[in-house]
């Protein structure tokens, strides 16, 4: 019944659509929410959507994980390993940024009691 999903075009279409939806959700959150943590989460969501897109579009139905193990000794029909490696790296970086952001936000809250990005007015044009 879900065989049509085996068609890479359809599958990729769905992935792309989903990733983009996620991207726009993140973007919406980023633009509409003023809570610092919510903004950071929105950024994380946007990043995630990009990872999803990457992984999703780089694999086609029927490909196996690119790991050589028992019985699997050839590189045929394997998914491209590069996107996955890259995504892993990107996730790590994203996490680092997110961690830094959250810690800054917490420090900021402790110092000023504010979490609202709109109330950050120490630095502004005259």
């Amino acid at each position, binding site marked *: 019944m879900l065989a049509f999903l085996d068609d890479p075009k359809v599958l990729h279409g769905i992935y792309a659509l989903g990733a983009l939806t996620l991207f726009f959700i993140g*973007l919406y959150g980023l*633009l509409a929410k*003023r809570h610092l943590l919510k903004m950071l989460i929105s950024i994380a969501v946007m990043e995630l959507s990009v990872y999803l897109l990457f992984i999703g579009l780089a694999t086609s139905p029927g490909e196996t994980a690119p790991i050589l193990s028992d019985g699997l000794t050839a590189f045929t029909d394997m998914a491209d390993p590069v996107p996955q490696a890259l995504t892993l790296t990107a996730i790590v970086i994203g996490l680092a940024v997110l961690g830094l952001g959250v810690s800054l936000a917490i420090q900021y809250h402790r110092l000023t009691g504010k979490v609202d*990005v709109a109330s950050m007015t120490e*630095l*502004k*044009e005259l």
Partner: protein
Amino acid sequence: MSWMLRLLFLAVSLSPAALLMAWDADLSWPLIEGVRLSLTLTPLAGFFLVLLALVAPLIALPMLRRPSDVPSLVLFVLLLIGMQLLLLAGDFVSFFIGWEVMTWSSYLLLLRSPRTDMVTSQSYILFNLASAFLLLAGILVFYSVTGDFLIRAATEVSRPQALSLVVLFGLAFLIKAGTLPLHIWIPRSYDQAPDLFSAFLSGSISKMGVYGLILLLTLFPDALTGFAGRFLNGPAVGYLLAWVGVITSIVATFKAISQEDMKRLLAYSSIAQVGYITTAIGVGSSLALAGALYLALVHTLVKVLLFISVAGIVLQTGQRRFNDLGRLIERMPISFFGVLIGIIGLAGMPPLPGFAAKYLVFVSLVDARWLLLLAAMILASTAAFIYCYKLVYAPFLGHANSPEAREAREAPWPYLVPQVILMGLLVLFGLFPGLAIDVLIDPVLVGLQMAPIGSESWAKLSTAYGGYDGVVLMLVFGTAFALVTGLFLLLRGRMRRAGSPHDLSFAGEVPTAETPLHYGAGMGRELRRIPLVGWILRQGTQGFYLGLAGQMRAAAALLGTLYVGRPQTWILIAVVVFALSLAVQAMMGGL
């Protein structure tokens, strides 16, 4: 500061003179790829170098008076180096470098005065930089036409190119020379600059604009005639330039008359004098250029003399307004003679060389048949008598109007020595009007491939329209003066000095010390009742430039609203721009 440094400074101030003596070959070295700086000494530059060589040590000497201001001295040295580079430049890049060094070092010198305010300093630097950047734009256009930066006559220029070049260069030099309506920076800065530096500003730096204008003539030998043909017996474009110059002179002269401050008056007078020079350059004939150069020479000597005298007065009294001075003739006699000789030169009266210069210009105007210009120039130069008189009357004659003026002493010797030297030079050139022609001006004219004026002897100034003999004139006048004074003193009778300064015929009353007896600033106030003069004095360009500055600030405020402090706005703008350009691309590319 040790005497070694002082000596070094004096030596540097003599460097233009040394350069003039020692220069014998051309120099050149690379700057960046495709740009070579080259230094050479043309006759024209040599003339202006002579002016610089005369003036620099004379201003350096009083600058050394204790307590000396070391940054000022350093900046003055930089300024001198810049100006020498500018004059020696054989290519436009070194010309521009010299021009800019001159601009910023003079600006920083201007800041050394405690009186300089924001408007003055900003207008000084912005006008001068505008001039510099126009010059640079012109240089780049020139470069794109000729393929290198050498200063040489551009022959293969198309009309629009030549037009843009003339406009760019012309505006640049006219700003520096301070013609109307680009003069607004001059009165303020000459007034508020350090007193001695005002002398240099007016005497030397303003001449660089003149140098540029004359250089422009050599770049485009047919620029004046080529564009719009000839008007009467002269170039039509030059006619325009000449009117610009003459209107500058007229307006500046009337403004000068109405000033109540010595340095401001001299500043406006500078504008007017440079206006004459501009007029002469506009005429463009060999006679006129000789007149322009002669005027430049005289104006340099006279203005330096006057500004140094005034600096001495300000130093000794702390006053600079006409109303606060008076009767200094008895306290500062040498300064009085300095100012007296100065104004005689400034007014262009015989027998001083100011007359020779004006004579050449007048004759060149007659020769070009531009009589209306001549009349306008006469108006300016006759009206100049009024401010000249004001300049000598208000500080030196009349009644002392402030305690400082009553107790002032003669200026210190570093101020007097330059004055005496300058007076001597003025008298020398007055005696021998042909001297300047023969030694200084004719080589330039020959260098510009124009007919030299020539002079039978140094005592004579001779043109195709006639001339005069300076020595005879001076001798006749001197003899007459001696004769008259001698005869007068031989007459029977007694001279009696009035018992008190208040012993006056004063409308039937006896004035007291409280009676306001100094005409000072009142002089020239009646002039406003003349409709034309009143109208001129009511006009001003300051409003326009202040308005422009205001518009700039408003634009800054408007654009500043873009730079809000909210990250979401930043992101929103980025996303919107992204989406919009994508959409535009999609529509254009038919996505």
